[in-house]
């Protein structure tokens, strides 16, 4: 068994039917300067109910990896399987449909729309042209998602009236309202204090109790330690990492 094969084997958890399986993923950023390789052969498998933390220094490619997994961008090489389906080369229209059906996203900045209430911000994820839910059902699901986050009482509040932690929980409710199979969180606690960050991470982790797979990109080792597996991205390659719990 080669070293690469061993790494891949280590990264693959011993559970059946992975939600996603990424093999040898590469990505090079092409700007005005010389092309810069960001990912140079990433292997990753995520199962239902599993939580993974990805650590790494700034600029190591964590967000790029997440954007490839979340179908925001397309990899230069490698293979990406969603269940049994190869989605490495997917047209944008189908990628949008998959994002809507399978993925939920939480970002460092909350990206709540200021002119909408908390409930409307959650409901906006259901007004995306992928199917149609009547207004009453949208409202009920948005309120249920806010209730899961413990902030149903803030449903009619607009973002400027919410604290950072509350805003991030609204963003998580938005990510969960379509009941995604995979939750991708890109430094969701980066703008929050420690206590609020803990609440947010717990809210994210609790989603895995319902069978959702979670990939959390973070700089915080304490938060990473709350995930089932911790991976470290360095020089474009993912490797397992031990974090004190």
């Amino acid at each position, binding site marked *: 068994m080669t070293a690469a094969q061993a790494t891949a084997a280590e990264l693959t958890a011993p559970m059946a039917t992975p939600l996603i399986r990424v093999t040898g993923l590469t990505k090079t950023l092409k700007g005005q300067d010389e092309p810069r390789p960001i990912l140079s052969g990433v292997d990753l498998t995520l199962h239902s109910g599993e939580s993974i933390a990805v650590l790494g220094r700034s600029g190591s490619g964590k967000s790029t990896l997440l954007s490839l997994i979340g179908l925001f961008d397309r990899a230069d090489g490698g293979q990406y399987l969603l269940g049994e389906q190869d989605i490495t080369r997917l047209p944008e229209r189908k990628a949008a449909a998959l994002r*809507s059906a399978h993925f939920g996203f939480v970002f460092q900045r909350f990206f709540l729309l200021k002119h909408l209430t908390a409930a409307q911000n959650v409901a906006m994820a259901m007004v995306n042209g992928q199917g149609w839910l009547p207004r009453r059902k949208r409202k009920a699901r948005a309120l249920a998602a806010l209730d899961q986050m413990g902030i149903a009482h803030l449903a009619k509040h607009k973002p400027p009236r919410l604290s950072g932690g509350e805003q991030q929980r609204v963003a998580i409710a938005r990510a969960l309202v379509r009941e995604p199979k995979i939750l991708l969180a890109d430094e969701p606690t980066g703008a929050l204090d420690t206590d609020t960050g803990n609440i947010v991470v717990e809210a994210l982790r609790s989603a895995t109790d319902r069978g959702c797979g979670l990939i959390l990109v973070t700089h915080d080792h304490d938060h990473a330690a709350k995930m089932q597996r911790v991976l470290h991205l360095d020089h474009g390659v993912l490797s397992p990492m031990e974090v004190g719990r």
Partner: protein
Amino acid sequence: MKPFSGRFRSALIIGGQGIRARKLRTFLSMISLFLGVLGVVAAQAGQVIAHRALVASTELTMGVDGTRQIYVSSQENVGDMVMETAKGRPDVVAMLATNAIIGEPKVRPVNEGGMAVDGSSGGYGGPMLECDEFGNCVNPNEGLPMGQAVELRVVALTADVRQFRPLRLQSGQWVDFASAPSLAPRLVLNKAAAEAFSMYHVPAEMRFTGSTANSTPRFVGVVDDGVGSPQAYVRSDELLNWMPVDALSNPMFGGPEILAAPTATDFIETLRKKLVGLGGRAEDVYVNEIYAADRMPMELDLMRWVFLGVSILVLLIGSAGILNVGLATVGERIEEFALRRAVGTPRLLLAGIVLAETLLTGLLTALAAIGVGIAGLAAAGRVFGDRQPMLQGVAFPWEAGVAGVAAGLIAGVLGGLVPAARAARIPIATVMRA
């Protein structure tokens, strides 16, 4: 249908949210567009109203579109022949005209020649001469003193002419063709005649050119016939009680005029044959089909194009306003659009959302402009209606409404296309790296 419906509704909801979130900006972008759409609405409404007024005038004085206007060359017994041929046919009206003076006996009328009593229009403007077969003419009023009498043109009808010329009843009743003819001719005056008789209340005696005796007329109604000089309508059989047909078909008053439905081709053929029987030529029956568009003055057409040109120019400026605001708005909403793409909104729908917003803006602006147009027209009718009869009781033309909505939507599309394309190209990674 359902996926499209979902997308369409999504676009409308998100577009509506976008407009509500930027009320002031939307309002500002609407102002310039409003003027453009109002220009289009005004141009279209003005053109339609002017055209309708023209058509209405043509219908009153000539006939409705499709009517066959038939003239027969004057010659002996033609009047009698025409009246006989037209008699009893509901699809044909033969008209013969003569001049009459109604008022005090043995006086010169106040409007010799039958012109308007205020001298504004119509009529011959001089005494109506009576001529013999050798062309020797005399003025029958010569030597008579000026008195309380009005000269007018009397049109004798074989049937109801309103099927061809929609004369508008102003008061009283129209000529009754159903009852037995009356010995005292029942006249329906036009407005100019009614005005003349309201100024000169005169004893009722009517003398015709060529009549065998003077009769006592009865005024039964007043119509608007679009003619500026005094004129009256009467049943031909009531008039012919007092004068021979030959007197009516006197070339001095023009030959008989006939209006016929497009289906009355057999009548024209019969007329031609009878004219040949009288020694005339079949070609002397002239048939003209009335078509109002033929009478559209070039000035009206030119005015329409000038208005339209100015409106398009202003509309383009309005579109540029929407485009400017749209581009600025897209720049501000990069994160929102990236987020919407992240939650699964397709590129095409994002473009649709931006377009929906500009289209909604255009539509709302168009509705506002149409509303102002309707109110403006109503106000103009109230203020200027007395001086401009074409504005009296005029309804806002639906064509102007359609043009306004179309203009608003076109401006929305023109102003929204570029911002929509930009919105669709925003990369989702924007939110990842923010």
